[in-house]
């Protein structure tokens, strides 16, 4: 600030009222109904698991910022969002240390070493969950029956039932009807069973423009088509589509995890491609994978390829802009101009140019 008390800012001087804070609070608000429903089905343990996850993630983010020598931005709630996402992927009877381990891995191994917010290579919640799924598959995939109040602390002795995803993996028909599954009255990850609420939260996020519609739509379309073409259970095709879409953490992942801005492509067309390819990969994991729901692993794999889709899209756009998509017919009598094909250059020497930013 100078002596007139004025701050110099760059154009444009009107900005959208959206900010990182509003984007993150939108996500938290969208996850709140899921926690409430989980509370309804499984008792207050669900809420405590969520709180543990959020608190661990936030503390670790603070430590990470200190280790990097930065002051932590208190409005940056992305770690809290990760901490809240992780318990929703797990059964409500999970011990607390599993959630803590997942959060530790998510923040300390995925977010912090690569640069913090905005620089994670993979979805942190996905990697945290994947780590615990490899370590303790018997804990992470054994779901309690709904509508029982679980003990808040200590070991939980809950009646576990087979989840629909597990039945599908074995090639059997799930023992519930679709209506129960939509309402969430089944065994499954804490936040991923109630399809209706997830759809409502997804709609809220779409309207608030926190997530885009392209990735989830193409993802679900491809999953539906593959479920229709190759049903896992020996029953009708439309039922198969319903079961595939409603079992496991597929819909939850499509709304909350696939749309994570840092790891998904930025271009519209690239988002469609990304969603479609992820759908195919997830279904392949379901058909041939070892776990009953390999969604997280498929997501981590696709996160690696996300920038590739962006590059492809950019190349296509570049060629359209410069008119090299279709070869130009040379005018009669004129020289044949060389086709302007720009290959992706190898990363050369970095030259610093003077830019006028940084007022």
């Amino acid at each position, binding site marked *: 600030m100078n002596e007139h008390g004025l701050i110099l800012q760059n154009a444009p001087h009107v900005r959208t009222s959206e900010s990182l804070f509003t984007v993150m609070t939108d996500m938290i608000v969208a996850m709140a109904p899921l926690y409430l429903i989980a509370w309804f089905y499984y008792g207050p343990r669900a809420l405590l698991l969520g709180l543990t996850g959020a608190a661990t993630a936030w503390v670790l983010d603070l430590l990470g910022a200190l280790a990097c020598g930065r002051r932590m931005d208190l409005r940056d709630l992305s770690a809290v969002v990760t901490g809240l996402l992780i318990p929703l992927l797990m059964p409500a009877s999970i011990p607390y240390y599993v959630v803590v381990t997942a959060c530790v891995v998510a923040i300390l*191994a995925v977010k912090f*070493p690569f640069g913090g917010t905005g620089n994670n290579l993979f979805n942190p919640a996905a990697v945290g969950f994947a*780590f*615990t799924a*490899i*370590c303790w598959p018997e804990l992470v995939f054994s779901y309690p029956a709904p509508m029982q109040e679980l003990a808040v602390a200590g070991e939980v002795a809950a009646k576990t039932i087979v989840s629909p995803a597990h039945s599908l993996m074995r090639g059997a028909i799930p023992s519930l009807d679709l209506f129960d599954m939509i309402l969430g009255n089944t065994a499954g990850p804490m936040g991923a069973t109630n399809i209706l609420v997830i759809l409502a939260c997804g709609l809220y996020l779409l309207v608030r423009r926190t997530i885009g519609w392209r990735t989830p739509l193409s993802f679900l379309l491809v999953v539906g088509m593959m479920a229709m073409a190759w049903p896992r259970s020996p029953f009708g095709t439309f039922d198969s589509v319903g079961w595939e879409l409603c079992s496991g953490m597929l819909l939850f992942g499509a709304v909350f995890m696939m749309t994570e801005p840092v790891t998904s492509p930025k271009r519209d067309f690239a988002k469609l491609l990304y969603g479609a390819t992820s759908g195919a990969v997830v279904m392949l994991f379901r058909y041939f994978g070892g776990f009953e729901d390999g969604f997280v692993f498929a997501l981590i794999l696709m996160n690696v390829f996300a920038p590739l889709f962006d590059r492809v899209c950019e190349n296509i756009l570049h060629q359209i802009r410069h008119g090299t998509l279709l070869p130009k017919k040379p005018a009669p009598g004129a020289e044949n101009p060389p086709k302007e094909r720009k290959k992706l250059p190898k990363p050369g020497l970095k030259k610093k140019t003077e830019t006028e930013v940084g007022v």
Partner: protein
Amino acid sequence: MKKMNAAAASLMKDSFRKILFSNPVLVGGMVVGEIIIGATSLQNAVALSVTFAIVTIPVLLLAPLIAYFVPKTWRILCYALVSMSMLFTAQAAVAPISPTIFDSLGIYLPLLALNTVVVAYSRLISEEKGVVFNLLDGICFSLGFLIVAVLIGGLRELFGSGTLWGYEILQRKASALKLPFSGFLIAGFLAAAVEGLRILFHAKPYEHFSGGKEDQK
């Protein structure tokens, strides 16, 4: 006499650096694969370090001799021959650690015979230096390797299998730590820690590892 003492002192300082601040694995980036994937337990770590020492030090000692007689194109083959022939000795030395040591290490033990120090470092650096320098090089590299391997292997065994040198210690374990990706993550954090220590002690890295960071504090 004084000149020799000064040279000896700088040599000792150089070598000391190679153990920690110019650690061959964490700073030099050499021999990374075998350590990270192979060191899943303390026994594995010790076996790998012993093998590394037995296989590499003779190569480093013989490097100037071989460089004198053999033309450039064939030198690496000769180094590999030397290290491979030492492999038998190494395997004999490692066998008493545990009966299942060769099963748990799999291919990473013999793979050490072709590690980066044997193949690249000896060709680029050891040929031109004297025997004393190479001996100290070998010893310090081995010590550095041992430290890193023991840290990574120990951590992974303790938290990944709940044991330490085969003795049960912890009840709960996270078995995903034994997978290679955890090894890479742990190695990354250790490298960051070493870099932090280096900055703390204002030490300069060994010039062949510094990558232009000599002027940085």
